[in-house]
Every structure is written in C-alpha cells, then in structure tokens.
C-alpha cells in the first residue's frame, strides 16, 4: 500500500519535471484542454481531451499511400476543428509535391472546420514544412498546427515539441503509412484507417487506434470505431474494439 502511494508520488514528481503534458495532468500550468467530443476517447487520454500544447502524431493506416487516401486527413481535420472552435485560426503545412490535390473548402466545412480560419502553407519539401510548423507553433498566433511530413527523426520531433511548449500551441503531424514506427518524442501517436460504415449510403467511419500515449492512466481501450451521424453531422464512438487492461507499474519506456 505504502509502496503504491510512494510510486504514485514519484510518478507525479517525474511528470512535473518532464514538462508539458505532465504539467497538464498535474494541473499546474494554465491548462486548457480541448475535448474531442468523443467521451470514450476523452476518457482514455490523461488530459480528458487533447492538451493545448504538445505534438501528436497521426499515421495513416492504409496499406500504401496513394491518391485516394483520405481517412487520416479526415481525422486530422476533425481534430483541427476542435482546436479552431474558439474562433481561432489554424495552420496547415502541406507539401506541394505530395499528391496532386488541393484542400476543398466545402468539404472542410462539412467536417466542422470553417475554411476562413485556415491558413495553408504549400511547402516545397519536408524541411520547409517542418520550418513552417515550428514557426507556427512558436508564434502563439494559431490554436493548432497540422503538418504533413514524410520523414521525421527524433531531433525534429523534439524541436517541434519544444516549440509547441514555448508557444502553447498544439501540433499535429500527419504521416504516410509506416512499416516500422521510429522513436519520437510526441505526446500521443495514433493510427487511422478508413472502414466501411456498413449503411445504405457512404458515411464517414474510421478505425482510430491510440498506439502510444505519454502519461496514460491505466485500464482503457485503445482502439475505437468512430462514425459520423448522417443527419446531424456529429461524430460518435460506435464501438470499443480492443480492451486491454494496462497494468500498474513503473512508468513504461516510451515506444
């Protein structure tokens, strides 16, 4: 009993030392949480939503990247719409050579992101996209920054995390399908795959898996099926797909 208590207090100390995300859990900083509006997922996150600062990685779950891949982007737009809710702007760093497409205002609008709050940067390559992301994160002028980045190493993700803390801005990294997951210092890591909604008409439906989350509390599911209600346009969690209790113990190594 005493051991569990001292472990808890040790964990708290480490969280406080480690900075953002940790401070959010402890409630020390002027913490602002952005709830996703999906109670099952919000419960699984230690912050009850996404924190206002910190970087999250969204990985596409498609078998291979091609022109018709939209699920991860859709989920990213959904997350952005939550950050843009309080009449704040969001920044999207796209890459010109990636895909032969452009963002379409009416579609973004139907997912809940007002296009007039969006600023898009058309970067030439990963380096420019990362630079623009860092500028955006550090500036504190936008609520969130979404960047499409192909290759990301530990140093780059660390830089983004520091910039995010400095500017109190959330960062989202949209990655193409990955065979192996490299180490990175992001707060959460998700894999998103589009799935059949199974209805008469096409409806947005994703399988969202939380691969990794720092400071996660124990015992919650990590894979959900998120669908859109066709009439209202609101999203809801249709099913909990994987329930795996996480054992209490020393803080697991990140990975």
């Amino acid at each position: 009993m005493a051991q569990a208590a001292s472990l808890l207090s040790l964990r708290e100390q480490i969280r406080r030392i480690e900075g953002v995300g940790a401070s959010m859990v402890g409630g020390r900083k002027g913490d602002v949480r952005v709830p996703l509006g999906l109670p099952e997922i919000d419960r699984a996150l230690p912050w009850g939503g996404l924190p206002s600062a910190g970087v999250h990685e969204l990985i596409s779950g498609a078998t291979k990247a091609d022109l018709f891949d939209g699920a991860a982007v859709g989920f990213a737009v959904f997350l952005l719409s939550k950050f843009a809710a309080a009449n704040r702007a969001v920044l999207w760093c796209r890459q010109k050579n990636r895909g032969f497409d452009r963002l379409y205002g009416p579609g973004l609008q139907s997912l809940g992101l007002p296009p007039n709050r969006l600023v898009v940067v058309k970067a030439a390559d990963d380096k420019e996209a990362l630079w623009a992301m860092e500028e955006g994160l550090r500036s504190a002028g936008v609520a969130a920054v979404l960047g499409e980045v192909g290759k990301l190493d530990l140093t780059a993700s660390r830089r983004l995390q520091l910039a995010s803390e400095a500017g109190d801005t959330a960062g989202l990294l949209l990655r193409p399908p990955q065979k192996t997951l490299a180490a990175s210092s992001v707060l959460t890591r998700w894999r998103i795959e589009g799935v059949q909604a199974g209805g008469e008409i096409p409806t947005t439906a994703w399988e969202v898996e939380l691969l990794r989350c720092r400071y996660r509390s124990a015992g919650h599911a990590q894979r959900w099926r998120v669908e859109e209600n066709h009439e209202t346009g609101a999203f809801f969690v249709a099913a909990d797909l994987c329930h795996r209790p996480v054992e209490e113990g020393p803080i697991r190594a990140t990975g």
Partner: protein
Amino acid sequence: MSGGLRVISVDALARASGVVPGVTLADGRALEPNLGAIDFDGPGDAEALEKLAAWGRRYTPWSGVDDSFERPPDGCGDLWLDISGCGHLFGGESALLEDLLMRLERNHIAARAAIADTPGAAWAMARFGGGGLPPTKAARQSGERSPRACVATERSPREWALENTILPPNRLRSYLEPLPVLALRLPGPTVEALSKVGLRRIGDLIPLPRAPLAKRFGPELAKRLDQALGSRSEPLSPQAPPVDFIARIAFPECIAQREDIEGTLERLLEILCKQLEKSGLGARKLTLRCDRVDGGRQHLHVGTGHPARKPSHLLRLFREKLDTVEPGFGIEAMVLSAPFTNPMEGQQDDMEGAAQQNGQGAAELVDRLSNKLGNAKVIRLTPQASHIPECASREAPAMEATPANEPAWESLAKPAPRPIKLLTNPVPIEVLASVPDGPPVRFKWQGQHHRIVSAQGPERIAPEWWHLEAGHPDQTTRDYFQVELQDGRRLWLFREGLYRPDNPPRWYVQGVFG
C-alpha cells in the same frame, strides 16, 4: 424636357453617330443601338482626378485639380501643372507636352492640353482652342514669369482628337481674341447677358472700358479677363504631397558586422514606427537601403498583410533577409522607408485582450511565413458562388486583404456531401455501371480493381448555361456520386455527359472524402 436618364458626356464614336450631351439615353439608343452607357460617378471621378494630379507630379511638384470654375457635371475634369523651370528637364516644353499627352493616351484618358503664361489663358486654350471640338484641354504657360500648365482630362476611355497648343510668351492677346466668351470661366447667366448685347468673343471684350463692364455684368467678368491676360495674378495651390516616412542613420565609421546592422535596423524601426504612430498609419511595405562605401546600394523589402507598426514584429520580418546583405568594404548609411502605408487604429501592445492578440498573432505569423516563403505559398481558401465544384473554392494569398464583397462560407453550404480534397485534374477511370444512369458498381484504376460497396447520388451539376457555347449542351453535364469502396475509402466520382449507346460516357474521380 422630361425626366429620364440623360447623357452627360460622349466619346468620339458616339458623337459620330449623332449622340451629344444633353439627349436622353433612350434617344441616344435610337440613334445608335449599340450605345454603351456607364453611370455617372461624381465622387469616383473626383478621386480619379486627384490620383491623376498626383501622377502629374512626375513633371513638376506643383500640380493640382482645378476647381476654379463651377460647372454642371460633364464627365470632364481639369488639372493644372505649373511647369516653370521644369521644361528643360524633359527636353523642352513641347516635348513635355507630347510626353504628357502620350502617357494619358496610353492609359485611355482623352485629354487636350495647352501651355500659356496665365492659368486663365491656359484653361481657355485647352478648352476652346483648336476651335469646334468640345472642351477639355490643358493649357500650359511659358515665359519669364511663372509658367503654368493646365491639363484637362476626360474620363471617357475612348480617344479624342488630341491637340496641343503652346502659347508663345507675350502673344496672349492674339490667341485669346478669337475664343468665345465661355472660355473665360464665367457663370452661365453672365454669358447669356453678354451674348444678348452681342459680345461673343473675348476679342470683343478686351477693348471695352472695364468700369462699365464691371458695373453691368459684375466684377467676375473683369477679374477673369484680367486673369486671362495676366494683369491680375491667379495663385494656384498645389495638391498636398503625401507624407514620406523615412528614417536615416549615417555612420562616422562604416560598419560591416551583422550585429551592428541589426542594431541599427532596430533603431531605425523605432524612429519610423513613431512617425507612423503620429500619423495614425501602419506600414504595409518597408524598404531598407544600405549604402556602401564603394557606392553600391542594396535594397531589402518586406511586406505585411495588415498595417503594422510594432518594431519587434517588423524586425523579425527583416531578420530573415539580413543574411543577404553584402557589406563589401563597409556600409556608411542605412535608410528605412515605408513606401506603402494604410490607416491603423491605436494598438494596445500590452493589453491582454485575447481575441485581438490572437488575431494579431495570426496576422504576424502570416507575415513571417509569406516574407520567407513567398506570398503565393501561404494561402487561404476563399469561397466563390459557383455551381462548378472546382470553382467553388479558390486559393488566394493570405497576405492579401479579404475583399469586401466576398461571400461567407456558410452562405454557400451545399446540402449534398463534399470531399475534403479535390484532385487538381480529375483522374479518368474505367467504370462498370448499369445504364443509362445507374450508380457505379466497380471501377478499375491503374490496373487495380475496386469494388464499390455503397453509393449516394446522382447529383447532377450542369455547366453554367450562361457560359455555354452553342453545340452540345449536355456533353459536360456531370452526375456526381459519393461512393464507398470495399477497403473503406470514400471517393467522389462523376460521369461526364449523358449515356449514349454509341459514345459511352467517361467517368472520373474528382475528390476524396475523409
């Protein structure tokens, strides 16, 4: 004369068809069925004249809009330029006049100009010299005394016969004598009274004694006559030149280090921003000029989307570009100027107003990104009222201000679903669908087959009929389907054209859903 739309001013082509100022538009259209009509815009014309006067400053610092004569609106305007001492800079007075008229003509501003010793004479020659043609000419004056020039311009975009006149000094009388009395800038009733007694030309008036003239027709007549002939002076006040925002620092010993350059820039920015604040303006464009010891000059330019006068923000915009400065043997002076400014209200730098701060933060971020990457690479999405899907959403540089008449996104929302990404060029695919207009069942793309699990549609989007040419009106009609594939992806397909047995329609993928 009954009411109705009346023609105020015509161009040469209309005049040739018989349409003259004063007729009603209906009569004009009867004379010339293809008559094009533009609404008279008094304030707009006045503003344009002011801008022309500012442009006229390229010839002389003394230029302005002429408002010495009240007359009913006739689509024309007068400008004058005092070109004393400026003629030789352009290769002589006639060369100056030619240059002026040529530039006006190139910009589709019909004008006539004249040069004379007095503004009165210049005005008269410009409007009435060359006999027979309708008014508006400029007059210029040359001589030992202050030469001046009047430029009268018309706002009509068509061409007039261009004439120019240069009055030699001391020959005013002989040029003015044949001109009608109207050329003296007299009010209508005076002109009528004069014509009743047979005084129709300026030449008739000159020999008459002044005192009875003034007594009978008012002091205005004598004044104008004297002004035209030069016995009474007529001072003209020029348009106020725009305020220049400029700050300059020269060094007793040249500098070459990057920190010194940046430090000087910081001081220059503080001086300039104070100037801007006093005038209630913010900078939209700033230019830094570094003068080197060897005579070389370097310019750095920075632009902002919204007017700015925060030194720290502007310094950051410059910092990216300071690396490109080559000091050479040393920089001896640095000059910072704001060539383009906009009005800006008071800024609360230290207030916590969250919304304003965030708006400002986002604007400053856009400035930084645009200055580093280029305006075309930092964009926002603008809505357009169009049925054609690819036209409904457009990309515009984020630095540009939102136009006032831009529709709101909410007002253009469509009930049917729309994709989040649109392919720049629709991708052709081979589709299996039930004829004639059933939903697609499977399609093949890049050698791969995809099975369609469910589909919604069709949503028919016909081309905007007012843009259609005669021919095959239904060939570019599109029937859109939102489809869901077996692997969970959702796409936006369309069939182009209606089904014909001999010419199967083509299918394309245009968008990707989330």
